[in-house]
């Protein structure tokens, strides 16, 4: 179990690490170019794993709907935005606000799709996140003045 906890923590560390590295690349190139390299290098790495493990052309692929393919293009904007933001508001603020946005939009989607869950927990969670957002950006506002 300790191993899996370490693994799940490391997965989080790596998300921030890749944003840090892509942020550095975007300083020398541009956020969009950093996103291009991120995707190309990731593709080559995953292709190597796929070739080693096998199953590169899974059976179910022909049944996948068109929207199963658009996560990639959305990811390009996501990575470019992260690379751009990290140089401006820092690593912690970027991570916190992206997580907050992910959680709040997740609640909206869940409510829309009727996914069961405690309404009080969802509401309180959203309120806490929004309060954190207001607090963290108020520093920016006071600096700007």
């Amino acid at each position: 179990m300790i191993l899996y906890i370490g693994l799940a923590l490391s997965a989080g560390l790596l998300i921030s690490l890749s944003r840090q590295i892509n942020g550095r690349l975007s300083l020398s190139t541009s956020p969009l170019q950093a996103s291009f390299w991120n995707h190309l290098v990731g593709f080559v790495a995953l292709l190597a794993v796929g070739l080693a493990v096998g199953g590169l052309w899974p059976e179910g692929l022909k049944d996948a709907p068109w929207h199963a393919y658009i996560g990639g293009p959305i990811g390009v904007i996501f990575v470019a935005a992260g690379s751009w933001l990290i140089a401006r508001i820092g690593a912690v603020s970027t991570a916190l606000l992206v997580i907050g946005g992910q959680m709040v939009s997740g609640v909206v989607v869940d409510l829309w799709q009727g996914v069961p869950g405690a309404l009080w927990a969802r509401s309180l969670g959203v309120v806490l996140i929004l309060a954190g957002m207001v607090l963290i950006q108020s520093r920016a506002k006071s600096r700007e003045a």
Partner: protein
Amino acid sequence: MADEAVTPAGRPVDYLAAFATGGLMTLMISFNGEMARYTTPLFSSLTAHGTGTVAAVVFLLLLRRGGTVAAGGRAPLWAYLGGICGAVTVMMSGVTVNTALALSGTLALGLVGQVLFGLAADRWGLFGMPRRMPSARDMAALGLIVAGSILIIFLGGGPE
């Protein structure tokens, strides 16, 4: 004070953009998850990186501007390897969601990992990025956002 002066604090609109980016993440996970259901998590990530590479080329061609010189000088070679982290993350998460941690535990621990690395990265300006000391206000905001997220993940119906 001296440390804080290293970088500008950003504008409020930057923070709003970061929040909106989180919404993109929800969409991305949902579409990639759809592909993973029809195929495998590995194939889903491979496809996302492949279609993403093509999309990035298209965007770069559409937005091409001549003569823009970036301020950061020549990028070190390691700066091109950010994509490796993403590829490894997919495999790690693919393992932990199928243990007792499930998706909620994987998400919650991942969130903690992201924030811890972010704190260290800002504190020491890791990987050639600007150094920033988190203020007391930043730490309070951190507590609020992490608490709210954990609440949603474990009690809000969240992923399960």
